[in-house]
């Protein structure tokens, strides 16, 4: 990406068009990004308005990160940026070029041992449908690392950004408590 030259928009990539309502309009705001995701460097060309969540799911075949509300209200899209949990639905992909991004797919490699938080979620049956689970797990990993899993009340408060429509909350608290013990 090109930094520093403020407010000089890049010219339309020649020959790039989008069809909206049957009208052919030039796509002026495509940008090419180099993203550091799960330890790999990934190239992607998207519209500037594309969120990190949509970039992951629609352009990078990383569909483990889920879209619940798309408005910051549910936590299903939680990923780590530079080691901290954030919401990928309210983050532009362009904002995190140059940062380190970790998604649920990067937590443990296929075939390897599960991350202790993943193992604890299995052990404690901390889900029903599983849709909120990747977000819960990414949030829990950070919650423990932050030191915010010291008591059940603290776990509830600091995991409140992850909703579970199936109401698996009691088991989620069990899993986070156990994983925190194991990781301490």
């Amino acid at each position: 990406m090109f930094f520093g030259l403020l407010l000089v928009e890049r010219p339309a990539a020649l020959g790039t068009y989008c069809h909206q309502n049957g009208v052919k309009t030039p796509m002026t705001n495509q940008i090419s990004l180099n993203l550091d995701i799960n330890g790999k460097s990934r190239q992607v060309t998207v519209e500037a308005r594309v969120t990190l969540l949509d970039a992951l799911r629609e352009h990078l075949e990383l569909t483990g990160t889920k879209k619940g509300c798309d408005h910051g209200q549910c936590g299903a899209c939680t990923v780590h940026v530079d080691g901290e949990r954030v919401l990928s639905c309210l983050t532009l992909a362009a904002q995190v070029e140059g940062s380190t991004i970790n998604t649920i797919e990067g937590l443990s490699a296929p075939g390897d041992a599960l991350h202790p938080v993943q193992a604890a979620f299995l052990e404690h049956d901390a889900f029903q449908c599983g849709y909120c689970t990747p977000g819960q797990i990414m949030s829990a990993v950070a919650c423990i690392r932050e030191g915010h899993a010291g008591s059940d009340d603290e776990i509830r408060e600091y995991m409140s950004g992850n909703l579970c429509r199936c109401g698996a909350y009691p088991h989620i608290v069990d899993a986070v408590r156990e994983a925190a013990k194991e990781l301490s």
Partner: protein
Amino acid sequence: MRDFSYVRAATIDEALSAAAMPATMLLAGGTTLIDLAKCGVAEPERVVDISHLKGLDGVRIDGKAATIGALARMSRVAEDPAIKGEFPAISEALWQAASAQIRNMATIGGNLLQRTRCAYFRDPATFPNCNKRNPGSGCAALTGVNRSHAVLGGSSACIATYPGDLAVALTAFDALVHLGDRQVPVDDFFLLPGARPDKEHAMRPGEIITAISVPASPAARRSTFLKVRDRQSYEFAAASAAVGIELGGDGRTITDIRIALGGIATKPWRARAVEDALRGTAFEHDAIKEASRLAVEGAIDHGANHYKIELAPRVVERAILKIGAAA
């Protein structure tokens, strides 16, 4: 969401020139801006990312004041040991806001400038009538679902509640909003809706928030933020109170008291009538209960939000009792 271009500001000067340009919006944490762009409320043509600017994210405290950079993240400020020690109400207002994820993204400057959660405001496709979005178009909330709307500071044009928590604590302790060289008391920074609810603050075109500062005081050191809401966490305030108190040498006389309310007014609401009634008096439950009623002097309800007039004085009372008891 409208298509827009994206650039990163490399210097504060670039951010300032961007702030003066039409159809251009600054992006800090993005938790308000991207949300409202998806709602079709914010329609920038250009988004200028200021979140990577250096030098605007510090927290500095000396004996006189705390100065917090506009780009400091909510989570960082909430956990700052000096803020916790000297301004507990600020730390509490921050950690009780939003969620851990949002607090890692959201900045102090962006937090002050968050927009109302009025459901009509947030849904232009379904509700064209909103004076805040579109001056002169009317107000769908006045006769609509207004359970979360303001009972104080409203006008016939708009009754949208200011939703933020931090600004309530800042208002109690006379913070200053730094707009580069110019500093505006936080109580003057936020405007009442009057006939122009689209004008929410005293920032001029081409200005940005660079920092906020809060004077240190014994009342700020002995302070708390009490937030009452529909669910225990990850919810906006139904009513909140930031309260700071200083007791005299006898441990009984209220020598200083600061009170501001949130969740019930169109801007963070300083409760000076309650402060004046209690300053100089003995710390005593009945008197505190009586004085707390003054917090909602002049309140007007719109039916569904009547409960706020009952709730707010109780929140003030409980916060004063809590902080007065915790020696």
